């Protein structure tokens, strides 16, 4: 008996030590790296006597590998003119991004510069953890600040101060499987749009025609990530004439007849028509088993890798109150850092016209000169310049940025939790909406 206990204790100890090591190396590789490099460069300075102090910046993104590789090339370009600045790219998954960044800022281990999405900005702006870059960008003639669409800067502005530069403003659009549409002899969304007939009725009709439960083919998928209800549902809600919050952003506004109709439609797609994958099912558009997928323009980086079927993009369908196209939004901000100057210099470099031309292969640029240029329209063979014109450029004027709130995290968790009662079919849409109204309102004070 003693032997076993001793053995177990030893095993337990080893396990604890291993677990400890793992989490240590897992959490702070970047930091250790920085310190190690700093040590190294200090000694270099001693012997060489470089003019500027070597600085290492950390740059956080939630992008995929292709986007990371693109930034690595931009960083190499940046180093040619700024040899004393190293930039390390750090990837944090989107679902954890805001919380991880908040914790890192509180513990002073945050990156120096990084991406922010519209829903994250109010919190960080409110807590004063973003650096004002207004002077740096506005007084630099070469940078050409006036080229950036002023409407895309509102969310980053507070008085005369400016806390970031947007780099991606992708409208929500429909990716459709051209091969499936051809197989069923359906008119494509692009054709219908040109005839001015691309409505939710046609959308639902196409979904039903394409769906084939027995072979696992679905007509439509609105959801990219089951934990991100707002991207999936806002266009549907808006196109039916409802809204998430009221005009002042002080109350939940979706508990109306229009809001009910929108959620009911979503519910029916999954459980009545069965043309939408079930909650939690992770089937993606690139498998070829989805007729239409509503996503952002940035998904083209994945779609371009598709080889076994043809696809294209089209605008969102027209509802009773317009298309309700939502505008995604991501920008770069400089966070509380010891190197605000170097970080601002890097921010300016990656948002200048040339760099934004490079990033426009994945991101809808916020600079007029880039958006309206061939660099963006002809960045890749697919989608065609015509489709980009129809589904992206022509939609920019009417598209809306999703609303934010400083308590977004709480509101997000609450709505996600309550939507589950629709997903489990245990409560009706009306019941869920009236619960949402009561509980979200108490979080908005």
């Amino acid at each position, binding site marked *: 008996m003693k032997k076993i206990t001793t053995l177990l204790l030893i095993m337990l100890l080893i396990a604890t030590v291993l677990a400890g090591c793992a989490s240590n190396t897992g959490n702070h590789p970047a930091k250790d790296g920085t310190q190690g490099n700093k040590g190294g460069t200090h000694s270099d300075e001693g012997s060489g006597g470089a003019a500027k102090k070597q600085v290492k910046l950390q740059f956080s993104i939630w992008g995929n590998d292709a986007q990371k590789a693109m930034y690595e090339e931009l960083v190499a370009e940046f180093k040619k003119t700024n040899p004393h600045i190293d930039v390390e790219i750090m990837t944090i998954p989107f679902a954890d991004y805001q919380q991880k960044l908040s914790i890192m800022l509180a513990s002073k281990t945050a990156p120096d510069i990084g991406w922010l999405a519209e829903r994250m900005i109010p919190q960080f702006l409110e807590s004063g953890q973003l650096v004002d870059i207004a002077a740096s960008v506005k007084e630099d003639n070469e940078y050409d600040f006036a080229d950036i669409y002023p409407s895309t800067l509102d969310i980053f502005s507070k008085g005369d101060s400016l806390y970031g530069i947007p780099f991606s403003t992708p409208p929500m659009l429909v990716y459709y499987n051209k091969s499936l549409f051809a197989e069923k002899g359906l008119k494509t969304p692009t054709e219908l749009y040109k005839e001015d007939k691309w409505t939710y009725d046609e959308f639902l009709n196409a979904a039903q025609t394409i769906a084939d*439960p027995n072979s696992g083919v679905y007509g439509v998928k609105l959801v990219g990530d089951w934990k991100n209800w707002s991207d999936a549902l806002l266009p549907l809600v808006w196109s039916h004439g409802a809204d998430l919050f009221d005009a002042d952003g002080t109350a939940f506004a979706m508990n109306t007849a229009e809001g009910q109709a929108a959620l009911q439609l979503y519910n029916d797609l999954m459980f009545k028509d069965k043309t939408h994958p079930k909650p*939690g099912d992770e089937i993606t558009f690139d498998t070829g088993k989805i007729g239409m997928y509503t996503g952002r323009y940035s998904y083209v980086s994945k779609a371009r890798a598709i080889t076994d079927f043809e696809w294209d993009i089209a605008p969102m369908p027209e509802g009773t109150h317009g298309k309700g196209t939502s505008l995604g939004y991501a920008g770069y901000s400089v966070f509380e850092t010891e190197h605000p100057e170097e970080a601002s210099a890097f921010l300016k470099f990656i948002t200048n016209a040339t760099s934004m031309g490079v990033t426009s292969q994945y991101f809808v640029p916020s600079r007029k000169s880039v958006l309206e240029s061939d660099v963006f329209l002809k960045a890749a063979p697919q989608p065609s310049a015509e489709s980009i014109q129809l589904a992206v450029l022509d939609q920019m004027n009417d598209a809306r940025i999703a609303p934010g709130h400083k308590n977004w995290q709480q509101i997000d968790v609450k709505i996600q939790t309550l939507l589950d009662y629709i997903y489990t079919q245990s409560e009706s849409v009306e019941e869920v909406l009236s619960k949402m109204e009561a509980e979200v309102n108490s979080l908005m004070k």
Partner: protein
Amino acid sequence: MLRNEKWYGYLFISPMVLGFAAFLLGPILTAFFMSFTDWSLLRDISFVGFDNYKKAFADDPVFWETVGNTLYFSAGLVPLNLSLALGLALLLKKKLPGIDFFRTALFTPVVTSLVVWSIVFKYIFATDAGLINQALRILGLEGPAWLYHLELTMPVVIVVSVLKNVGLNMVIFLAALHDVPKMYYEAASLDGASRWKTLTNVTLPLISPSVFLALILTLIGSLKVFGQIYIMTGGGPGTSTYVLVYYIYQQAFKLYEFGYASAIAFILFFIVFLLTLLQWSVRKRWVHHEE
């Protein structure tokens, strides 16, 4: 030179004691202090006395639901795990050809990463595309939404957790069974005891110290469940699989309420402490042959 032997003793234990003090005791005491504040990343810290504890007990229905779910998880997992582990140990005790293969197969999940295990089972239990429901479809049945069902999801998580960890207790029981002297079984069979009687009157009393150890470890582990919940259900659907550690995680790292999260962590500490104390006190009644 240190003359006194006692100093050597202190010297030898110092790495452990210092490490414990710096990385465990310190944070624990800090957390205890934090549980009396309203510290959040979004505002300045201030002392609020017992408000966090009051909120948990009186004003937060989700907290009570969370406590209920945690106890439900433990009540489901512990008996299932222990009885299955004992049954498997009894089956695998015999020295048969190829028996090592089965022992290894049953132990492998224990050394597999919990994250990998949970992700795989999340796919297996997916509603339309999942392995189980696909198999049911071949038989002409429509399976339920295992992970999107208010009553079914917790049992699914329990079963997945049992499959993951049953091997560890099985190994403990196997070792204990091998320690039982053969002569007791001979005596029992001479007295004409049935196999059931032999099990309840010979085997179980003789391995009771191991059962006790396994019980305490499994119970404490089950009260601290987090990984499989975080990955498979995210506390959902609704709040039906919110367990205490998940709730602590959510309050602290998603909603930034560190003060409230610390208070719940201490409530969990007392629950574990009390349950362990309770078992310790009734141990004398059923644990025999302790060395």
